[in-house]
């Protein structure tokens, strides 16, 4: 290996490198999005204030964490899970039920809870929720890894999890009283006035990006996603990979469920359905973020950094439209147009550059 091969492209400046790495269509699309964004930011009153920026990132945090989890599944070439919101629904029911369980309360009703008892209550419920989510993820991952179609498997699993969640909670709202051990995660803030959920989003985004970039596991995800035959030939079967990625996605969904339950100190299976947020239901929103972020839906190309930026982008467009007084129809329409547009652009680029199946 000579220096010349190692340093190819070092003499190019940034613009040249972008033009080498990305096709004009993608540059055009990103440019268009940026122009719309900047124009909106300039012409919308109160958009560029510290308070609003905080709101945007906090809104992006919940869907963003889920989308980061789903990115692993997408990168490993297993499309996406249609059961994200149902996993979250099952988890939120599990968490709230355990938080409100008699044996898990902090003593008599009028006693002052100590930090330790609050922490233990939270810990028990949190660990149990994560275990449930892991099992749910492993179940789907195993079926996908054996060769089941991810869409159909997760469609069935979605019905199953939603049914279990409703059955467990009798389709009622499960609530628990304040103060409880999840408040710090839901509404608290340790660093100045930045909510903890925002901090969690940033930390998870950084950890996920570092994992994908610098660990063996991360490189394996890309390998299996980019070329399944090559992965199998080098001993990286999709079976294990699908299980691992589905577990990551489910655990992220469960984390979001816990955080959301901490905000409202209650739970219901329909919290993540169409009423949640502003645009459509949570699963589709999460898939939209992964796609608008520019990850290849066929796997092997993309990163969680793109997903995080996609979450913030969609959240800020949404925020901008709310500030300008648009109804939910127009906002869903805008997000839908963005997804379809980015799908078509990326497909056109792929069609021109690579041999198709």
């Amino acid at each position, binding site marked *: 290996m000579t220096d010349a091969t190692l340093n190819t492209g070092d003499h190019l400046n940034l613009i040249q490198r972008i033009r080498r790495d990305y096709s004009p269509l993608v540059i055009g699309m990103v440019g268009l999005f940026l122009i719309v964004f900047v124009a909106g930011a300039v012409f919308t009153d109160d958009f560029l204030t510290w308070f609003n920026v905080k709101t945007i990132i906090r809104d992006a945090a919940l869907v963003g964490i889920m989308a980061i989890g789903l990115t692993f599944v997408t990168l490993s070439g297993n*499309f*996406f899970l*249609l059961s994200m919101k149902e996993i979250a629904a099952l988890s939120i029911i599990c968490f709230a039920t355990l938080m409100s369980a008699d044996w898990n309360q902090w003593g008599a009703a009028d006693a002052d809870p100590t930090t330790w008892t609050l922490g233990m209550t939270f810990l028990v419920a949190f660990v149990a929720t994560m275990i449930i989510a892991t099992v749910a993820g492993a179940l789907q991952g195993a*079926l996908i890894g*054996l*060769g*089941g*179609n991810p*869409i*159909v*498997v997760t*469609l*069935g*699993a*979605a*019905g*199953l*999890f*939603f*049914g*279990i969640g*409703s*059955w467990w909670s009798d*389709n009622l709202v499960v609530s628990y009283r304040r103060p409880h051990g999840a408040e710090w995660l839901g509404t608290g803030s340790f660093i100045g006035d930045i909510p903890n959920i925002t901090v969690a989003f940033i930390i998870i985004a950084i950890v996920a990006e570092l994992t994908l970039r610098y660990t063996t596991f991360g490189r394996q995800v890309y390998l299996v996603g980019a070329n399944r035959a090559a992965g199998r030939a080098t001993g990286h079967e999709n079976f294990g990979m699908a299980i691992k990625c589905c577990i990551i996605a489910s655990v992220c969904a469960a984390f979001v469920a816990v955080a959301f339950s901490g905000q409202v100190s209650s739970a219901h*299976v329909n919290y993540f359905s*169409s009423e949640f947020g502003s*645009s*459509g*239901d949570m699963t*589709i929103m999460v*898939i*939209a973020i992964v*796609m608008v972020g520019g990850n290849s*839906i*066929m796997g092997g190309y993309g990163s969680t950094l793109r997903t995080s930026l996609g979450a913030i982008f969609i959240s800020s467009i949404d925020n901008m439209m709310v500030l300008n007084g648009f*109804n*939910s*129809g*127009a*906002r*869903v*329409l*805008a*997000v*839908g*147009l963005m*997804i*379809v547009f980015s*799908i*078509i652009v990326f*497909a*056109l680029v792929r*069609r021109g550059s690579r041999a*198709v*199946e």
Partner: protein
Amino acid sequence: MDRLKHWVTENPDLSFAILLAVSVFTFFAITEPLFFTHRTGFAIMERFAVLGLVGLALTLCIIAGEIDLSIGSNAALAAVITVRFTDDWGAINALLMALAISTTIGAIQGYFIAYLRIRAIVLTVGTLMLLRGVALFAAEEKTVMLTDFRIPDFISTKMLSYFSPASLLVIAMFVVVGLFMTFTRYGREIYAIGGARKEALASGISLQRPMIIVFAISGFCAGLGGVIIGLRSGTAQALGLQYLLLAGTVAAFIGGVSILGGKGGVIGAAIGTLTVNFLNTGLVFNVTPAFMVQLYLGILLLVVIMFQTGSRVFEERQRRSQLLADVDRRRSILSEKIAALRRPSG
């Protein structure tokens, strides 16, 4: 008897579907005294009208090796358009308008899928959201309602003791699509691009024509389903009807389609839908809440998928071990021959 045995071995999926349908029906007919009555038969056919359409649409898509996720949104859009404009334009005009829009949306999807050569799920998950937005826009974020309730009454009129105009229309649709799939070249092309796409393309079938036809039919079925639901209940919601996707997929898979494409048929779709309807209606008699029905459907789908995947893995393993045994046998024959050749010379 021999012919029956032959038929069963020829069509294992279809006979399994029939067996399942008959056993579900028998189970409920024995346990629920009210199940095996004319009225329940009518109710089942009423459900069949909507679910059958969705099952048919998904069956066609899966035969072509793709899956249409936007079916619920498309149906909701058609329902909203029909219900909203019935008062202004009359039911027939609004209905035709909604059907035209749904079919066009389907055809455009098919065109883009074929032109861009992407998997249908990738595009249709986008249009799922887009159409939902359009439907919200068309309904102005409200639940739209009919004011003239003679139309819902007409749609549910009882005819021939089991049928209504809606279910007769759907049965006619099944017959037409079945004939189209079996006896026309275009129908056979759909099977071809599903079962062996590379070979089909290599032999000169264009990808665009069958794709556009499949997704146009799928859009039409979704639209018709939405129109029937909308006109029958007199109301429509832009965010409703998402449950159709799961029920339709279960129906299609019970009917014997394979996720790899190229397998299954319209008769299977009808039987699969009937099975789901028997289950649904029977569970209603048991006072089962709606979410439990969803749970059972989810389990059913997972079990069917598990069987399909398992049998595929098993077959693959069988084939591989067969291949290895073959190689071994040939090698031993070869070495024997070499030994036989060497012996006289040595």
